[in-house]
């Protein structure tokens, strides 16, 4: 964190009086713009994914705007809450919805320089905030006493605690290689000089993080996002009891979480190009289509992965995440071996 404060202090020293104030207000504005972008485009990513998946199976598939229509419909429906549930059940949708928004404030979505709220946490902090949303979703699934809820909740925890050490090693390796876990510093590390991009630790981290995204996002080798069979569900069964507005918030929150994970993955680890470098408004606006293009390319890869693999049996998930763990550790020792 020390480097980060120094960064801010130097920035502050460079500028004087009113100009600095204007820049601070711009940074707050851009930060809010980031949140709006994440909120607005997260359902689109999910829509494009499902459409592309259907197209790969020679079907036509729903419109890419279907998730927006779903959200609209759900927001206008009545909400039914079980009498036996506690406050956790009512509180959870807001938590799930707000957690990714908080993380958005911390990470580079559109700009390559830190924005106003970015001092509040590094990548590790963002991970914790996302995990908090997941934690509440798990509690709420147990809360209703619906028999399928706890099954899904315990399975999510299983995947979660297997993914946790991998996350830890990935962050350790990032801080070992780049000397920091603050995303704005890390993303510069891979591209200057360009030879760093091909360092084994970087490429292996990218691989390990991809496997983590598949596991955390409930994607196919781990979980089937489009499955409707309650006994086989992992991620989806946690929101079974929700309806109306609560369900809409859970869904939207889940889509935003995925979007935020992709932003961390693409903007910090894989392709740290195409972000706005200065404070000009046009540059920040231009960054939006570029980021969406990157995400589209990732979605293409994701759809290929999802269509060519089958879902793993529950106890094989250990091996999948074991492979992710090995990849991240190899990333770390490859860096050691270089020295």
């Amino acid at each position, binding site marked *: 964190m020390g480097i980060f404060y120094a960064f801010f202090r130097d920035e502050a020293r460079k500028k004087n009086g009113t100009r600095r104030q204007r820049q601070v207000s711009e940074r707050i504005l851009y930060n809010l713009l980031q949140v709006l972008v994440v909120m607005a485009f997260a359902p689109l990513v999910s829509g494009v994914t499902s459409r592309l998946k259907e197209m790969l199976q020679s079907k036509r598939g729903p419109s890419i705007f279907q998730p927006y229509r779903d959200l609209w419909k759900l927001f206008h429906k009545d909400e039914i809450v079980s009498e036996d549930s506690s406050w956790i059940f009512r509180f959870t949708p807001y938590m799930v919805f707000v957690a990714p928004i908080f993380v958005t404030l911390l990470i580079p979505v559109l700009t390559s320089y830190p924005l106003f709220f970015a001092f509040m946490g590094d990548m590790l902090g963002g991970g914790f905030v996302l995990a908090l949303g997941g934690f509440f979703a798990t509690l709420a699934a147990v809360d209703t006493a619906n028999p399928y809820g706890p099954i899904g909740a315990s399975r999510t925890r299983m995947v979660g605690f297997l993914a946790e050490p991998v996350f830890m090693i990935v962050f350790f390796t990032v801080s070992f290689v780049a000397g920091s876990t603050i995303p704005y510093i890390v993303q510069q590390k891979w591209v200057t000089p*360009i030879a760093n991009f091909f360092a*084994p630790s970087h490429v292996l981290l990218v691989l390990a993080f991809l496997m983590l995204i598949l596991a955390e996002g409930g994607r196919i080798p781990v979980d089937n996002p489009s499955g409707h069979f309650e006994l086989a569900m992992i991620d989806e069964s946690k929101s079974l009891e929700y309806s109306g507005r609560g369900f809409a918030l859970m869904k939207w929150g889940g889509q935003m979480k995925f979007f935020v994970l992709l932003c961390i993955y693409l903007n910090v680890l894989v392709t740290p190009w195409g972000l706005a470098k200065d404070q000009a408004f046009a540059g920040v606006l231009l960054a939006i289509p570029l980021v969406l293009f990157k995400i589209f390319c990732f979605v293409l890869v994701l759809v290929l992965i999802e269509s060519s693999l089958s879902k793993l049996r529950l106890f094989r998930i250990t*091996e999948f995440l074991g492979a992710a763990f*090995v990849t991240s*550790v*190899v990333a770390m*020792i*490859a860096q*050691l071996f270089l020295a």
Partner: protein
Amino acid sequence: MSEAAKQLVVNLNALAAGLFLLTSFGIVAMRQARGCLQLFIAQSLLLAASAALLGLRFDSGHLYGVALVNLISKPIIVPWLLRKVASAELYTRREIDQVLNIPTALSIALGLAIGAYFLGVPLARAVGPEYVGPNVPIGIAGLLLGALTLTVRREALPLLIGLLAMENGAFLAGISIAHDLSMLVELAIATDGLIIVFIVGVLVRAVAKQVGTTAVGELARLREGPR
């Protein structure tokens, strides 16, 4: 070659070596014999890439030779030989079992890879200033992981692949230490590997014919009469 290009080549070599280490882990953990073979092919390709990149870095024709020999013998001739002599084992059976379960085997493998650091780094330091990259520790790790594959597997073909992976590991370490090995040595090593493949392949076929299985781990005891 400019300094930046040199750095890029060195990093690409390190990347090939890092992925090489990952494939070694894969060979320890893979369930299918065929998957093992594919990982071995990938490993050999990475070895060839590493040799070619080191050749580029040090302007050494011999290393290009190593790359070429590896490119021809391991990814092409070894699978072809195995297909000829033991195709049933490779292409019809799916799952093979292990002495240890996969997470345990992987944890041991991780321990070995970290141990290779302590073995390899002093060795690499002894080579001198012309040595670059992580080849020696990763090569030693590949050697140890191949040995681990030999220990935990109970089927004949993955055992063979473990043996070949050990050879790959030794090769990866060797090419970074000796930049101009004579071509004769390279060819000898390459043909040696092929002869091993051929002999073990014939042996596997004979075992399968006599006993009806290739799970050689179960053939440890002598027994009279029908199985």
